């Protein structure tokens, strides 16, 4: 039985979890001898105080939308895809190959092709763990973790031994040609009279990420396939009864998930770095887990959570720049968000349910007690 109203489940529980994570993060900052209030102020100014800050916040948020959606789609199918990191790495490889070896006449066509390349490479990297889960019952959590490590080795090999321009010591590809440069927010907003920072990396990929949010929402909540994915995630037996194939759904959900994670590369590789470097993903694949959990696997929730994490990421970078707090603070915050919104969910829910139950009991009229005869 549902004890709590829906709004409490959807908004109150995550909000309280988030507040708990924030309080603990503040304590961590205190413990390393810094002032949390000053830190938050610095983060807000650094991330939201200028169009430059916003540009970075939205740039990171774009990454997290893709990876957050990736984790969400898998979650809906009851699959825990920890492999977003590796899938995003391979997505980067896909983008690099598409842009390095084919001369594109215009960035729009290049973007379409790069998106496809990123999605295909990311999906393929997810396909093997998916297949092993579906056909051989290998636990997808462990296989996707392993594939992150293997992806790092593959990328390392490709950059060091294959794609590195002659004479360069840097394990990175050559720069992409100027024609495939993606318009950034400055270039996009200037025509309508908004003067956005030129230096910030947020670019047209943000729009694609937002479109992806809408498409994923449509897919999950408005299509028969979405119903099948959700059914399989809730009850494998029921799905089987309804003729929804486990192998098919596992493969489809993971291919979509991997494709979304891979598509992150149009933002960081094509949009920002304009070449493929070794550590291009920077943990965004993992942040997708926190984003999906916080957003309750709903695309709109993911959208909001991605912006929040974009803010944290940019704010954290500013902190590392101006204070002695290292960037790893963000990893800690991310861990606390995952812990509280994901694993310690019930710690918040159980007392809340008691409160709502008590409130309901108080509202409902007392059932009339008939005096019961002692038995026998």
């Amino acid at each position: 039985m549902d004890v709590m109203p829906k709004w409490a489940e959807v908004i109150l529980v995550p909000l309280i979890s988030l507040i708990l994570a924030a309080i603990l993060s503040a304590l961590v900052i205190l413990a390393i001898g810094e002032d949390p209030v000053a830190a938050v102020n610095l983060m807000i100014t650094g991330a939201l105080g200028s169009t430059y800050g916003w540009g970075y916040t939205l740039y990171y948020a774009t990454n997290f939308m893709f990876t957050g959606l990736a984790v969400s789609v898998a979650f809906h199918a009851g699959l825990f895809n920890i492999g977003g990191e590796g899938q995003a790495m391979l997505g980067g490889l896909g983008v690099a190959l598409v842009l390095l070896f084919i001369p594109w006449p215009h960035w729009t066509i290049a973007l379409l092709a790069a998106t496809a390349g990123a999605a295909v490479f990311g999906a393929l990297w997810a396909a093997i763990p998916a297949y092993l889960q579906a056909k051989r019952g290998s636990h997808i959590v462990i296989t996707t973790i392993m594939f992150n490590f293997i992806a790092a080795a593959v990328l390392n090999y490709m950059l060091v031994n294959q794609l590195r321009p002659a004479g360069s010591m840097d394990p990175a590809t050559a720069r992409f040609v100027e024609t495939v440069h993606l318009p950034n927010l400055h270039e996009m907003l200037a025509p309508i009279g908004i003067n956005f920072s030129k230096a910030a990396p947020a670019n047209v990929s943000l729009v694609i990420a937002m479109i992806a949010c809408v498409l994923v929402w449509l897919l999950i909540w408005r299509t028969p396939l979405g119903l099948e994915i959700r059914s399989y995630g809730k009850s494998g037996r029921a799905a089987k009864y309804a003729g929804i194939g486990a192998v098919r759904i596992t493969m489809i959900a993971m291919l979509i998930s991997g494709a979304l994670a891979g598509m992150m590369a149009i933002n960081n590789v094509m949009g920002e770095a304009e070449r493929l470097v070794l550590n291009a993903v920077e943990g965004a694949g993992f942040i997708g887990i926190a984003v999906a959990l916080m957003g309750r696997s709903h695309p709109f929730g993911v959208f909001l959570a991605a912006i929040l994490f974009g803010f944290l990421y940019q704010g954290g970078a500013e902190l590392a720049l101006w204070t002695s707090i290292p960037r790893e603070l963000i990893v800690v915050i991310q861990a606390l968000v995952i812990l509280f919104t994901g694993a310690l969910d019930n710690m918040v829910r159980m007392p809340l349910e008691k409160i709502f139950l008590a409130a309901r009991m108080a509202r409902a009229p007392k059932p009339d007690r008939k005096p019961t005869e002692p038995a026998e």
Partner: protein
Amino acid sequence: MTAPAIELKGISKAFGPVQANKDISIRVMPGTIHGIIGENGAGKSTLMSILYGFYKADAGEVFISGNKTEIPDSQAAIAAGIGMVFQHFKLVENFTVLENIILGAEDGGLLKPSLSKARKTLLELEKEYDLKVDPDAVIEEIGVGMQQRVEILKALYRQANILILDEPTGVLTPAEADQLFRILGRLKEEGKTIILITHKLREIMEITDTVSVMRRGEMTATVKTAETSPEELAELMVGRKVLLRVDKAPATPGDVVLDVKNLKVVDEQGVERLRGIDLQVRAGEILGIAGVAGNGQSELLEVLGGYATGSGTITLNGAPIDLTGKNSDGRSRRARGIAHVPEDRQREGLIMDFAAWENTAFGYHRDAAYTSGLLSNNAAIKADTADKMERFDVRPPHPHLAAKNFSGGNQQKIVLAREIERNPDLLLIGQPTRGVDIGAIEFIHQQIVALRDQGKAILLVSVELEEILGLADRVAVMFDGQIMGERLTADTNEKELGLLMAGITDTDAPHTMAEIEANLAHAHGDASKEV
């Protein structure tokens, strides 16, 4: 006057908003067998779980042999001399009988001395109560009957004086149940007090001294068994006069709709679960499949419903249907006009977290009426759901409510509405009234009979013999993956079917318990896993 072995005073317990027990009082005298009877969900198991310390009561007191006793956990219950045999056995499947018996009652930190002591005690108990088990057998390899004896021995090993049994005959054949009752009689002679929870009137009449009736969390009466009748108890259980028979005209069977020949199913462990099934269902008749749970009925439904693979031939209206491959899944079956109300409504038939309207589309979600282009036509689904809910009297009639928020009967109506409203040629229906309140049972039975009278073929699987005898026109009895025999319902009786359920085809000859035991042990050896 001796103090009662157990006295409960004013026990109340709520699970969230559900009041499972309301102010219940009961006294059980030592050396008697006391029955507690009531429908599913009446609160019987909750009450006994409280007595065993598995749940904590919100209010009320417990007296054991006249002394007020606090039972915060099972350990306290064991210390107070209470043992319980749960409906679903609490055994560790890959442990031996002996290991299960000492678990939690070991002597000292090392296993060896505990095991050898238990082995000795077990021999004594075996002699005293005639409870035969093999101490070194692994639980997953023995039959349910023996597993149940292990549970009883577990309680006796802990020196229980009070034994609670929750629906102990649900997984037993009538013959096995008789043997259990003999054991209980023996325990009673030795001065043990026994509480028997059941929803079967026959068992109450057969073995108990006194009986309490529960309805909707309340205790409605406690009477001496000798001074009551099944009719009176039934009325007390449901609160009104009950029609114990289904009203239906004789069947007028037409052409063969479903023809199954030599159907075999092998499970993942390589065990043959169906061993060559032959059966036919005609238009306008209900074929009932009787049998003790775990003898292949579930596999039969699964293959026919398209979610297990098998070998053999099955034809529907003369055309073969695929048993393996792409066209053997549930979706293809639906396309061929086979509707299926599954045995496990909560885990198969419905998705408990989904709204009623999503569950109404479930399985048919790709139907043209439910889609527009690539997208689902949610408005159409919701309208259809509201319509179905009204016609099937689903309460409350809210398409947006999640399935878990409906009662068992209303959940079943949602599934039934979805499956039979599509005009199928064949309806597969498993345990149609398990966990369903009596009011809804009548409605569901009427719907099934109405469907038959429209000339549809119906295959009914139920472990309730009464339901089969009341509803089916013909009955086939399954045992150990085979059909032991077919009878016209009108020409058979519970005793004959009971023997067939124990795998004995020559139903006229007298049979010894040992023979039945041996038969069952053989069958359970590979069938017990499912139970």
